[in-house]
C-alpha cells in the first residue's frame, strides 16, 4: 500500500465533476460535527477563556487578562520543564529515526516469516503504555533489575537509570525509542516500496557497495518520508505522558518533568486551572510552531509534492 501519499485527505483525483449534485451530504456529517464541536472545539475555546482567568477549584474566579501568561517565563519550574522537554524530544526523534530507518531497510528485504516478524516488531507501539512502563520500571531497578545484570555481562558498571537525575531522561528515551521505532519503520518502509529498482541495478554495475547505495540512492529518496516520520515523532514525543508519568512521575525531584507533566501537576494536583490552561495554550502553540518549522524545512528539501491538507 502506498503509505504516505495517503496522509493527506486530498487525493487529487478524488473529486470528478458532478454538477447536478444537491448539497445533500450534510446529514452524514452533522452528527460527527456535533460531537467534534462538543468534545474537541468547545474544550479548545473554553481553555483559552480559562487561561485569562484566575481559576482555582474551590475559590471564586476573576478575570486577570494575560497575567497567567506573564507568570510563565518567571516560573523556574516551567522553564526547567521546557529544557527537559527539548532534550527529551530531540533524543526521542533522532534515535527512532536512525533505528527505524535501519529496521525498514531490513524489513524491505524478502525473507520467510517477514509478515509475522513485522507484527512482532510493531508490538511495542501497540502495547498498553502503562503496562509496558511498569515492566520497564522493574527492569530499571538498580539492584534487581535485569538491565544492570545485562550490563554486567558485557563488563559495564551498574547504572541508576531512572533513579538518578543525570540518567533519568536518557533512560526514559530508551523506553520511548523502544516503543516508537516501529512507527518510523512503517513509514520509511512505505517510502522504500516506492523506490524503483533501476538506480540500484546501474549502481551495482558501476561497482557501488551496499553503504554507497544506501547513502546516495536510498537516503535521498526516502528523505520526504523521514521528514514525515520525524514530524509525527516530534509531535508525539513533545506530548509524551504515559511513559514518563508511570515510570518517574517527573522525578527524581523534578529531573524528568516535561511540560506535559508539569501541566498535569498544576491542573490536577494544585488545581490551578487558570494557570494550567495558560500552560496548555502555550504548549499547544509550541507544538504547532515546531510542526510549522519542520514543514518549512521539508518544503525546502522536498522532491515530490505531497499535497494540501496539512
Amino acid at each position, binding site marked *: 500500500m502506498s503509505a504516505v501519499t495517503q496522509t493527506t*485527505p486530498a487525493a487529487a483525483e478524488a473529486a*470528478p465533476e458532478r454538477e447536478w449534485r444537491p448539497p445533500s451530504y450534510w446529514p452524514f456529517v452533522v452528527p460527527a460535527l456535533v460531537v467534534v464541536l462538543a468534545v474537541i472545539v468547545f474544550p479548545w475555546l473554553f481553555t483559552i477563556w480559562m487561561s485569562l482567568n484566575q481559576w482555582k477549584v474551590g475559590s471564586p474566579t476573576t478575570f486577570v487578562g494575560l497575567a497567567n501568561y506573564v507568570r510563565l517565563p518567571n516560573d523556574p519550574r516551567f522553564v526547567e520543564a521546557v529544557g527537559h522537554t527539548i532534550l527529551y524530544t530531540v533524543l526521542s526523534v533522532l534515535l527512532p529515526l536512525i533505528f527505524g530507518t535501519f529496521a525498514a531497510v531490513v524489513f524491505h528485504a524478502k525473507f520467510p516469516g517477514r509478515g509475522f516478524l513485522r507484527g512482532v516488531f510493531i508490538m511495542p507501539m501497540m502495547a498498553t503504555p502503562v503496562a509496558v512502563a511498569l*515492566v520497564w520500571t522493574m527492569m530499571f531497578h538498580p539492584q534487581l533489575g535485569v538491565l544492570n545484570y545485562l550490563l554486567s555481562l558485557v563488563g559495564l558498571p551498574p547504572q541508576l537509570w531512572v533513579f538518578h537525575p543525570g540518567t533519568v531522561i536518557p533512560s526514559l528515551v530508551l523506553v520511548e525509542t523502544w516503543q516508537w521505532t516501529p512507527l518510523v519503520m512503517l513509514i520509511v518502509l512505505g517510502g522504500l516500496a516506492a523506490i524503483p529498482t533501476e538506480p540500484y541495478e546501474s549502481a551495482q554495475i558501476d561497482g557501488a557497495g551496499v553503504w554507497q547505495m544506501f547513502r546516495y540512492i536510498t537516503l535521498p529518496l526516502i528523505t520526504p518520508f523521514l521528514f514525515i516520520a520525524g514530524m509525527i515523532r516530534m509531535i508525539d514525543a513533545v506530548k509524551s505522558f504515559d511513559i514518563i508519568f508511570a515510570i518517574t512521575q517527573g522525578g527524581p525531584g523534578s529531573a524528568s518533568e516535561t511540560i506535559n507533566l508539569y501541566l498535569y501537576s498544576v491542573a490536577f494536583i494544585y488545581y490551578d486551572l487558570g494557570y494550567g490552561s495558560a500552560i496548555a495554550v502555550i504548549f499547544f502553540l509550541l507544538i504547532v510552531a515546531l510542526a510549522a518549522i519542520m514543514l518549512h524545512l521539508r518544503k525546502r528539501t522536498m522532491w515530490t509534492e505531497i499535497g494540501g491538507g496539512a
Partner: protein
Amino acid sequence: MLGKIGLWFAVFIIVSPAILFFLWMASLSLKYEVDNAAYPPVFFPERIAWKNYADVLASNRFLTYFINSLLVTGTATFLAMMVGVPAGYGIARMAAHKSAIVILIARITPGLSYLIPLFLLFQWLGLLGTLWPQIIIHLVVTVPIVIWIMIGYFETTPMELEESALIDGASRWQVFRYVALPIARPGVAVAFILAVIFSWNNFVFGIVLAGRETRTLPVAVYNMISFDQLSWGPLAAAALIVTLPVLLLTVFAQRQIVAGLTAGAVKGG
C-alpha cells in the same frame, strides 16, 4: 550466502528488543517473589507461579475494572463508528478537505488540554463518579481516528456504482448503506481496530476522571504499584493481562493495523 546470514543477523538484532521484552514480562509474571528477587536473574523458574494470575483474576475488583474498560472502550468506539463512518463518507464526497484540518489539530493537541475544561464540565453536570465522563472524553481519541481513516477509504472507492444507483432513484442514504459502505468494509475494520486499541490503552484521561469504582484497567494497574514491598509477580501478571488483548490483536490484525497507521499515523491522546 554471506548476505543471507547477515540479513538474518540483522532481523534478529531488530526484533529481539521486542521479543525479549515481552518474554521477560511473561517470565516476571510467572515467578514467585523469591525468583523475581534473585540475582543473577532467573529466566526459567523451577516452580511456575500460576498463582499470580489466579490472584489477579480472582480479586473481584479486577472484574469491575475489566468491565469498566469494556464499557468505556466499547461505547466510545461504537459511538465513534456511528458518527465517524458517515462523516468520513460525507467529507470525502463533498471534497471538504479543509474540514480535515480540525482532525489534524485534534491530533496535535495534548490530551491533557481537553481534560481541564471537560473535567469542569463533568463536575457541573454531576457526572463524576459515573463512567460517562470517560466514555465522552474517549471520543476525543476515537472520533478523529475513525473520521480520518474513513475519509481516506471513501476517497479511493469508485464513484460509478454510486452514481448509477442515484440515477436509479436510490436515496443518498441507501447509496451509502448498500453501495459505499460494503465496498469500504476493510476501512471500517481498520478504523474499528485502531479506535479500540487506542481507547483501551488510554491512561491519561482515566487518572483524572476515574474514581475508585470507575477505573479502567490501565489506571487500575498503575494504582497497583507499591514499591515498598516487592510483589513484581502479580504486578507483571496484571500488566500482561491488560495488554494481552491488544498484543493478540496486533499479531492477528497486523495487516489492518499497518494499513491504518501508515494511512494517517494516527495516535490518540
